[in-house]
């Protein structure tokens, strides 16, 4: 496993110039998560438009893998529907665990994280933000239906 497979140029670019990093005023949903094994934190902020994610930003610092992963996440998630995003999360998790080796061409920059599958202890770095997003979407969903139920 060559190091450059893990540290691809595109990841280092996202690490250095993260997309959509920063706070968000008045998000519809805000969720924080921690990687218990290294202490890294990530917070996601989301604004919705119906079942579509209209705006997304993240806060937090981490390693190249986690920063690039969350930056790419925000890049590809913006504008998609909840169902599309949930499917993307599944696919991405399978990719970094080495269960699949292809993604849709539209999200091909995510393929840069495939190398993580060869570094088991770094998988958490790559997936933390995605797990958090999944949880955020589910929570938002049930908060919405609670509201409707009232």
């Amino acid at each position: 496993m060559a190091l450059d497979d893990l540290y691809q140029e595109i990841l280092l670019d996202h690490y250095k110039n993260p997309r959509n990093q920063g706070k968000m005023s008045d998000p519809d949903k805000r969720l924080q998560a921690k990687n218990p094994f290294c202490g890294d934190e990530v917070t996601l902020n989301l604004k919705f438009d119906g079942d579509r994610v209209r705006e997304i930003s993240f806060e937090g610092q981490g390693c190249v893998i986690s920063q690039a992963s969350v930056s790419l996440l925000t890049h590809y998630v913006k504008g998609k529907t909840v169902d599309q995003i949930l499917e993307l999360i599944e696919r991405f998790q399978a990719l970094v665990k080495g269960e699949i080796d292809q993604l849709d061409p539209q999200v091909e920059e995510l393929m840069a994280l495939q190398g993580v599958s060869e570094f088991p202890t770094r998988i958490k770095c790559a997936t933390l933000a995605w797990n958090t997003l999944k949880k955020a979407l589910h929570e938002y969903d049930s908060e919405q239906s609670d509201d409707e139920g009232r």
Partner: protein
Amino acid sequence: MQINSEEKKAVDIREIRERFPIFAQRENRDLIYLDSAATTQKPDSVIKAVSRYYREYNANTHRGTYRIAEKATVEYERARKTIARFIGAVSERQVVFVRGTTEAINTVAVGWGDRVLKADDEIIFSELEHHSNIVPWQMLAQRTGARIRLWEMDKEGRLHLDALRNLLSTRTRLLAIAHVSNALGTVNPIAEIVQLAHDNGTRVLVDGAQSVPHQQVDVTALGVDFFAFSGHKMLGPTGIGVLYAREELLDEMNPVQFGGDMIESVQVLTSTWNDLPWKFEGGTPNIAGAIGLGAAVEFLQEIGIDAIHRHETGLIRRAVEQLQALPGVRVFGPPGDRGPAVSFEITGIHPHDISTLLDQRGIAIRSGHHCAQLAMKKLEVPATARASFYLYNDESEIDRFVKAVSETRDYFAKWL
């Protein structure tokens, strides 16, 4: 020395024994080991799995980002998966590594019991329980003001469901019960017991220390809420065992070992917990032990747990029949089916003296109360002698054991 069965896998004892290094030792040439209920011997593959970890990829788990730490983490978690499948758990998140049955039960008593039980709630345990399934509940009762209800056994060591029906009340929060008794071999009908308890809204903790090693166990099919067992009684290393529980119970339970690895975050005054199952595994775990237990399960699966069970059923029948035929010998425990353990006494001879005489003939049995003082009291004996069997024992050993019991009786007869 084979169990013959047309369709079923047979156990070839000679071949199996060769895989247990202890029997090949010169000074153990004459060893007939009949104390597997206390702890079992270990096959080569288990001993090697332990030393291979130390020799090849010794590292702490879960947090290392280097090669041997990754391998240690993968092997530790692979053992968990192997064990989860072996006992029929839905997910490996339900398999918590602890030191053994005793720690598993104490973990439930504190982590679940202290959280859920209130004054005047009731806890039932049976009269044949091992001390490890008695004393944690006594202490829980003292801490919470809950009350103990004893499910009494009959003189043959059987528990009756009618008695349980009478004991269950609207206040009964927990029933703690052994799957198989280590002292008397009694096998309890767990599925029916769980049904009765659940119909009453009562949770069930099963002490599986003497069942998992010897018979197919499916915790999901049995419907148990908590299940505890020890690695060292199923060919595995010392210092490792398992607490299984239904996931929603693990979620609601408090952890009880606080420290490294079970933490999500720590502030000065408060902290938050890691996910299941690590929430319950504070501190560096017995990594070599867990990996060794995984290897033990793989050994049992290779031989086949059903084949082992059939083999042992043959041995215990033979032992009980022959002992019962000896004048002056009294056999305790239920008629009919039992686990591979038989308690007995020789009239006028204390069990300690029996086991010392048998040891002189190379036969290792146990004498004492077998951590079941309540059962001993009911049987009106201070102690018994106990022989217990496993897959590496054969029929000729049973015969030699029975002969030695008979000679022990004769040795003392001239004096007494």
